[in-house]
């Protein structure tokens, strides 16, 4: 790891003031620190977000859910309040990494990194969540823009995510057994207005994406067999040493079916 300077701000405002082109926000660090160790990232300074209270915590009021950006995967996975209205997202968080990683890694860090095989991008895109930053709020559809790319500007900080709890939601993931990232993960949500959103991670050549064919089929009939008639275009999917695009195309349908079956 190259030398860096560590900062520990106490407020969102102070964190924003420390931001610069050469600085990076450090949340749980479960991706950033390994990346720095490999010298694939070398920020001159790190702005630690773990000690900013206003970035933490889960609040559920009726069907409205707000999760602070520095809330850990463990906290999301084990939140009783969240499990009452959206157990599918708790399940998703319980599948990230391993127990020690979940004690450190955060929802804000995951979505700001937008790894094409990360779980949360599918969850938040599938829920139609709103991403709140220290400058604005934007829809998940507008936030995730490509491989490791988001709509975040230089120095802009994710502070929370908000969403209306769905009627039901499920997440099914085919994991790489070594890295525990998704080779394919599909999040399916039926929203209060009856519409359905299907978001796929781990597969898309441009990162997380929605599958409109499945969304339409499931809006008509929210059952696994509704997915049989849909098609997944392998041309838009990744091929790598773990799985070919054609194999992933099949996995997307299989995982979507399982997500529908598991939806609660």
């Amino acid at each position, binding site marked *: 790891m190259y030398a860096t300077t560590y900062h520990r701000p106490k407020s969102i405002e102070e964190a924003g003031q420390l931001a610069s082109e050469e600085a990076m926000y450090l949340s749980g660090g479960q991706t950033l620190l390994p990346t*720095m160790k490999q010298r694939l990232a070398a920020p001159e300074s790190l702005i630690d977000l773990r000690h900013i209270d206003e970035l933490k915590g889960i609040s559920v009021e009726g069907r409205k859910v707000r999760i602070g950006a520095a809330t850990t995967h463990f906290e999301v996975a084990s939140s009783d309040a969240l499990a009452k209205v959206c157990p599918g997202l708790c399940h998703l968080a319980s599948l990230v990494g391993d*127990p020690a990683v979940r*004690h450190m890694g955060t929802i804000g860090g995951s979505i700001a990194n937008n790894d094409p095989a990360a779980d949360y991008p599918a969850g938040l895109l599938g829920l139609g969540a709103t991403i709140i930053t220290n400058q604005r709020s934007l829809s998940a559809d507008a936030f995730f823009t490509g491989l490791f790319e988001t709509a975040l500007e230089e120095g802009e900080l994710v502070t929370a995510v908000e969403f209306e709890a769905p009627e039901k939601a499920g997440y099914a993931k085919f994991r790489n057994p070594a890295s525990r990232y998704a080779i394919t993960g599909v999040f399916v949500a039926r929203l209060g207005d009856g519409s359905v959103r299907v978001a796929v991670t781990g597969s898309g050549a441009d990162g997380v994406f929605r599958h409109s064919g499945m969304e339409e089929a499931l809006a008509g009939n929210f059952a696994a067999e509704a997915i049989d008639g849909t098609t997944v275009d392998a041309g838009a999917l990744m091929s790598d040493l773990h799985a070919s695009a054609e194999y992933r195309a099949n996995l997307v349908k299989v995982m979507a079916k399982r997500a529908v079956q598991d939806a609660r």
Partner: protein
Amino acid sequence: MADINLTVNGRTVSGTCEDRTLLVQFIRENLGLTGTHVGCDTSQCGACVVHIDGKAVKSCTMLAAQADGAEVLTIEGLASGGELHPMQAAFREHHGLQCGFCTPGMIMTAVDMVRRHGGQLDEKTVRHELEGNICRCTGYHNIVKAILAAAEEMGAGAKVAAE
């Protein structure tokens, strides 16, 4: 440079290190507590697991500066008064190790597991929860046996006591 103040195994310690120093390096090199191991250095293997403020984390994937002010528990802090912790005793009793390199991390992960699940651990849960700890010798069978035995001994009260 970062000034680090920690409570390690109940003892207040301080030291100075570079901002980029990993917590595991600080524990091993500055504090001389070499029970915490570095295996893969890529947060996969779990040999470096310690408890920070009561929760298991991988100390190779945390800066010492991030841990400043925290309470750290390492493998050296588990036994009390020369008496092995029940988890350590169970690993010995059930032959839960061969070369022993992964053992400190396994035990710290196992203690955290019992803290979260209490005495209600079953084999499936233990195997699932060990996904962040790699052992190349044992095939895991005796590790799982040891954790189940210790969980039973530590009892359902373990979860409550830890909270």
